């Protein structure tokens, strides 16, 4: 135990801390220490929550050891290579594009002075408000517009060239669409790195006689690398998670493959195998990201001086070119899709805005609110447990409980439906039979299943702002409260929670917006005939009614923009401590 961790683990229940003997603990001692730690109520509750949230992963990993179904060898030979290839192409091309947009944009807005810099600095985040599938629908007719080109290729170079051109265009377009709404993850991370962490180092480099370009490659980029990699890993996870955009453009990735195998072919076992593969890949990604991050930390804390860095003015040509360069990602990721959606929405609003649509909004808000409530409650429990309790088991518990953000929706969906289906077929059916009730599904296909799924996927979204909010409250305040005669719980209620109002609101907004725009989970787990804005947009788009799907899409984008406010504030807040 190092001094820092023991400093954190001070106010608490002494009897529960493990004995500080000189000899290293044996396995059985460690086991006993775990049991002792779990007897502490906070640790137990947090552990229970972590267990519930890990059920999908556990189910999938457990099923991996079952013998493969009859279809598996067929899938492995014929469809799996395609899924893998498509996923790899999209991950690498969208990832690369995000880097190429996000890093330079962040560098420009944080170190140069040019007209509109302040506006671009926050506006470049706006594309994050557009979910990938909405961006795909907004650009839904773009492939058709390349038909003349494709026909010309076929006439001039033959069928093979035509097929090649068609697929290059298709993959290219999808990559650009994905990158143009996902690059803000990279942008936000590198902007934070450039303008806060590396700020003084950049200034030092300049005083030592290095120009902007040299400073970028020799100081800024190496220092920002961990942050950039963390942002990139978020982009990759989103690309893998995406179902709406890739299915709309007919590119079967692994996520599409899971749904296809499971829902269309009814082969749950093979779908689980695919999911397990995806999950292992994502876990490797997380581990790699954490390893490369090392001790540097995504948002290196420490003392930041509160001065505005001196930004370098540009030449007259630069003053024209740089704003135009910044405008490109903003336009492709936000302005153009937003404008197209708005125009279509105006045309079709009369047809779409029926009483039925209002009830759709109602049910969307209801599900988003319930989802938010349960997720924020869970995150509050975890972060409070970490604040109040001192058992060492809590850190790994909280970490494992918040891994769900990395797992694609398709994987979570299958990991939840399987155990719930088993419950419905087993105990519930048995009880219903005994009671003479009509057999009905009790868990699967209900809002309960959806709620659990949101909890799994979005717990991290709420947990991180709450945790950092808690951490920002100096531990001396807790100590002062305890010394003035309040119990740990009293301290939590009177000091920590009142000071947590801001982070709580931020967490709630973030989760609310995320639930609202979530597609794959909602699509699979929703009750029969239950529609939300996102599923409605999906079904309208897959019927080819792009113009009509613009109304729900636009509403989702507006909600997403509201979600950016706390996100931006959080990014700023992480540094202003």
């Amino acid at each position, binding site marked *: 135990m190092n001094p820092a961790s023991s400093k954190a683990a001070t106010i608490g229940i002494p009897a529960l801390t493990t004995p500080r003997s*000189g000899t290293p603990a044996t396995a059985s001692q460690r086991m006993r220490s775990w049991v002792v730690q779990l007897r502490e109520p906070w640790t137990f509750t947090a552990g229970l929550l972590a267990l519930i949230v890990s059920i999908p992963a556990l189910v999938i990993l457990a099923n991996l050891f079952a013998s493969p179904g009859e279809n598996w060898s067929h899938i492995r030979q014929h469809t799996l290579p395609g899924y893998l290839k498509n996923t790899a192409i999209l991950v690498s091309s969208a990832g690369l594009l995000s880097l190429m947009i996000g890093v330079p944009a962040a560098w420009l807005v944080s170190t140069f002075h040019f007209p509109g810099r302040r506006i671009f600095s926050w506006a470049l985040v706006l594309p994050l408000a557009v979910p990938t599938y909405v961006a795909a629908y907004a650009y839904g007719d773009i492939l058709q517009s390349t038909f003349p080109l494709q026909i010309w290729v076929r006439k001039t170079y033959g069928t093979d060239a035509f097929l090649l051109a068609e697929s290059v265009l298709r993959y290219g377009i999808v990559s650009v669409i994905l990158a143009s709404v996902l690059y803000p993850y990279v942008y936000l991370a590198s902007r934070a790195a450039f303008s806060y962490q590396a700020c003084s180092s950049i200034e030092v480099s300049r005083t030592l006689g290095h120009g902007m370009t040299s400073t970028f490659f020799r100081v800024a980029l190496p220092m920002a690398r961990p942050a950039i990699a963390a942002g990139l890993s978020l982009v990759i996870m989103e690309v893998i998670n995406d179902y709406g955009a890739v299915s709309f453009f007919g590119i079967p990735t692994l996520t599409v493959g899971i749904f296809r195998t499971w829902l269309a072919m009814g082969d749950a076992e093979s779908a689980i195998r695919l999911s397990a593969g995806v999950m292992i890949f994502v876990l490797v990604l997380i581990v790699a990201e954490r390893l490369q991050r090392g001790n540097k930390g995504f948002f290196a804390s420490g003392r930041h001086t509160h001065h505005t860095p001196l930004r370098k003015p540009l030449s007259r040509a630069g003053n024209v070119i740089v704003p135009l360069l910044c405008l490109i990602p903003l336009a492709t990721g936000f302005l153009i899709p937003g404008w197209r959606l708005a125009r279509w929405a105006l045309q079709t609003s009369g047809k779409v805005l029926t009483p039925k649509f209002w009830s759709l909004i109602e049910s969307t808000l209801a599900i988003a609110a319930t989802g938010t409530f349960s997720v924020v409650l869970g995150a509050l429990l975890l972060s409070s447990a970490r604040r109040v309790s001192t058992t060492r088991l809590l850190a790994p518990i909280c970490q494992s409980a918040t891994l769900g953000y990395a797992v694609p929706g398709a994987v979570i969906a299958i990991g939840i439906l399987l155990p719930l289906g088993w419950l419905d077929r087993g105990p519930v059916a048995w009880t219903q039979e005994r009671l003479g009730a009509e057999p009905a599904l009790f868990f699967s296909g209900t809002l309960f299943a959806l709620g659990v799924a949101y909890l799994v996927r979005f717990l991290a979204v709420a947990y991180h702002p709450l945790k950092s909010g808690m951490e920002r409250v100096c531990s001396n305040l807790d100590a*002062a409260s*305890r010394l003035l005669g309040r119990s740990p719980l009293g301290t939590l209620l009177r000091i920590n929670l009142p000071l947590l109002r801001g982070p709580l609101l931020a967490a709630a907004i973030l989760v609310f917006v995320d639930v609202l725009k979530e597609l794959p989970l909602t699509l699979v787990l929703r009750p029969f005939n239950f529609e939300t804005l996102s599923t409605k947009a999906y079904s309208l788009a897959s019927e080819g009614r792009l113009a009509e799907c613009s109304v729900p899409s636009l509403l989702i984008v507006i909600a997403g923009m509201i979600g950016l406010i706390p996100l931006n504030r959080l990014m700023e807040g992480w540094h202003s401590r």
Partner: protein
Amino acid sequence: MNSSIQSNLMSTLRIQSLRRQFSRDSAQPAVNGVTLDIPEGHTMAIVGESGSGKTTLLRMIAGLEIPDSGEIYIGGKLVSTCLRITPPEQRGVGLVFQDGALFPHLTIARNIAYGLKRIGRKARAARIEEMLTLVGLSGYGRRYPREVSGGEAQRVALARALAPEPRILLLDEPFSNLDTTLRKQLRDDVRAILKNTRTTSLFVTHDTEDALAIADEIAVMRKGQLLQVGEPAALYRNPCDAYCANLFGPANRLPESFMRGIASPPAPGQMGDGWLWTRPEELEVLQASGTDTLQVEVNEVRFVGERQELKACPCRQPEITTGSLSTLTLYWEGRDEVRPGQILWIKPRHLSRGEPTTFPEGDNDTAGD
């Protein structure tokens, strides 16, 4: 070191063989067998450099840190053994933090009221007003912590800690975030408040000036252990070693033979074998050589009121052959002006008085100022 654990039944705080080690690998514990007694109404200061374990000791008394072994009694009640730890809220201990640690979402009045439980509304309001007046901030009750200055925040922290009438008040470097002028005033005020309220208190600081200004008794802490406990004057006059000596004022390292007045000893090997430390007051500065004198050259002259403080270097002399001599601090009280480069002679005063006031060399790595 010299605390009498057996006798004093009236002590408010008693610590016995307290020990805390943060990691198994680290060579030395943060707090290593500390035994301490504070009588009722006394103010004790623990002085030590950062990392000496003084804050850890304070936190263990407050119950914020769990000792590995040892016992703590507060008001005669055993609150901490290796078997049973009383949680901080049941110890009746007040703590003033370095940064105040005021609750930012509560007004000053409600901050002070925070520790006042099971007390009627009227009594509570009266107590808040009383405390605010005590710390000289009446009328500040409705403000929020962010609306007061650093010094005022520390006063509020003091009022908040004193409001529930703790058995003992702990202060963790409460002035270190303040600038010098403010610090001196607050220091005097705090001393007056502690004396007026007859509060037993333990005060931790790295600043000896703070300690001398506030404390009835001072304990010097180093590497997890108490080197010396005593009244300020005793610590100044009779430090147990060079480290303690240097904490409370300038001290000079001189050859033992010189200090003991052994002039021209028979064998050169005997000379300079040992070193002794002494305060500048114990050295007489002369303008002419005499018996048992040492020739020094003045390097620096600093005017400090009544007298001049000199930095001087001993000149190489045939009598003293071994060991390196460091710069000495001397006090010159004569009328004549002394200039850098001037040659003077020094002689231990006690040679004419009879009793040596010197102290032995402590750990070598601490010697020097």
